[in-house]
């Protein structure tokens, strides 16, 4: 059996689905952020895999993976800042307490 693109894609798919699962079922906001990171990583794996198997000369996938990492870092920084700001208001990290969107 030869290690191919499909295996990496499947791995990324599993990881992505785990991320989605985590985003939905977690109650802790930090955990939700963690799940989002997992999903981003899954995407990164895909990028790297495609870069490896099709485009190693230019490695565009890897470039985009780097962009994603930067954006992810920014996102997590901002997200956590917002989290802390919110926490200062409500003293809770429970997602169930943040329902001001309720119609």
């Amino acid at each position, binding site marked *: 059996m030869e290690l191919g693109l499909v295996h990496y894609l499947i791995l990324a798919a599993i990881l992505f689905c785990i991320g989605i699962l985590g985003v*939905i*079922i977690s109650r802790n906001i930090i955990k939700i952020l963690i799940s989002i990171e997992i999903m981003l990583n899954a995407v990164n794996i895909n990028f790297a895999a495609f870069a490896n198997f099709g485009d190693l000369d230019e490695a565009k996938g890897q470039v985009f993976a780097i962009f994603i990492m930067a954006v992810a870092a920014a996102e997590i920084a901002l997200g956590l800042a917002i989290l802390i700001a919110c926490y200062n208001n409500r003293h809770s990290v429970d997602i169930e307490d*943040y329902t*001001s*969107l309720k*119609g």
Partner: protein
Amino acid sequence: MEFFINNVWIIPALPLWSFLSILFGRALNVYENKYISLALTAGSTFIGFIFSIFILFYCINNAGTNHQYDILWLDTRDLKFSIGWLVDNLAAMMLVVVTSISLLIQVYSHGYMEQDKGYHRFFAYLVLFNFSMLALVLSTNLFQAYIFWELVGVSSYLLIGFWFNRPSAAQAAKKAFIINRIGDFGLLVGILALLFYSLNWWANSQNTLLEFATLGQAGSLALVNAGPVLFGFLTLGLLLGPIAKSAQIPLHTWLADAMEGPTPISALIHAATMVAAGVYLIARLYPVFELSPQTMTIMAWVGGATAFVAATIAITQTDIKKCLAYSTCSQLGYMILAMGIGAYSAGLFHLMTHAYFKAMLFLCSGAVIHSLADQQNMKYMGGLRKKMPIVAYTYLIGTLAISGLLFSGFWSKEAILSSLYTQGENLLLVIALITAFMTAYYMFRSYFMTFEGEYRGHARFHKPSKVMTMPLIILAVPSAITGFIFSGNLNLIGIKSFDSFVFYGHALHEAHTDLFLPICSLIIALLGFLLAGIIYWDKLKSLYCNCFDAIQRYTIPLYRLSVNKWYFDDFYNLLIKYLILPISEFISIFDKYIIDGFVNLCGISTLYKGKAISLLQNGNVQTYLVTALLSFIAVIILIFLIFII
């Protein structure tokens, strides 16, 4: 003479003008004087009467007069209805009857209604009725007849309900109109069907639609088109109108209730003219009815049954007006019976004579009631002959006439009976003879109870005014003599018999050679008189024996049946109460709770659906995400499915 024939429209137009004059005169408060209303009403009728007399003489002198004039009333593409006037022998006869009786009754009403608050209203209604009836008589076509047929019904509604603050009067007026409306329903459907099946004929001929003169030819075509069965139903529908209007079984119950109106009205509408309209219409539609033997048979049997049943009911009535009302019913039954067996002239002859003596009888009863301060129960009368001899003797003339003992009633009833005899309708003849016996009995009973013996009432008596007794005396003359004059016995001095004047097909000149039947009927009537006398006349009471007690005891069930009017009213009330109203209630509830309930359910369920969906909007981001992803997946799957398929 030609002038009167050509201007016959004046006869109905004047009452209409009088009606409008009274209506607007009172509405705009132009006048207060009661004599103006009276003059307008009686004057218009009097001019009509003069016209009618001249027209009658013209028709007598010029055999086969058929003067017709039509005005197009409704003109749409394939429907042309017209209104006009038709003068022939039948119409001329009816005109004289209607105008003469109306005139006398209007004069009488002045005396009767003088103290009433609604004097002007009463005369306005009277004159409106006069207009409708005259226009109905002069109708040239079935459609016009239908129009004025209904207007006559409305006038009678207004007049019966004249004292509308009495609940019973309001109820009676409504009942009369609705029952008449049932007849109108049949008539309308019949007219439509007749028109439908003979449409081509009318289209090809240049005649006015549904005109009476050519109805026979159209009818025979309709018979071909519709087939005998459908044509039979058609004629039955047409017959339903006269049945309701002439108060025949099973639609006769309104007539007795209609006695709630003022007595002159009972005389005018429910004895003399309006109820006769049914017979008149049958006469006009005779060419159509004749084509369906089954309908003729049914007509005869309806008439016979009504004559019999109404007579049995009249036997036990103690209300003088109700008694007379049922006798009207019974006599109308005779007329319809005569029409049904083909005795056209005899039926109309009876119509004419009956109109006079019945109007007189009712006016007499009105005078009695008026004198006794609205006492209508014969149990509290008696001995009035000494107090009001004119009324009593005129009433006696009427009684003798209606019983067929003497005067005009004898001749007309005799004509019907002999027709029955010659036609060989033996069963109907027996019924008619029994009815004649009962008629004599109950009429004399009412006479004896009212005018003979001792006064049994308590009300203070006051004499009827001249205005009221004069019409009685005048009416007594035609009541007494018309029968003999037109019976054909005066042929020698130039007066023709009735059946050579008003006839259907060809004139019948039957010599009444057989004296068996007249004598038989006379004996039967005399028996009725004797029976009534034995029971109710103190001079004959010596003959009274105990055996009547026994008879009475055995006839209690029959007595009950008669007093309760054969339970017709109860049956209809039950029908309405337990069938029609529940159906209507049920549909109403169905409408309110099922149909509207469904609508409201739709509305309310939308609210709940909204609430259910709003549960998703709980402010939780994750829920939104799940919803979004689910939709996303659904869309993807949908696209896949579409592409795979």
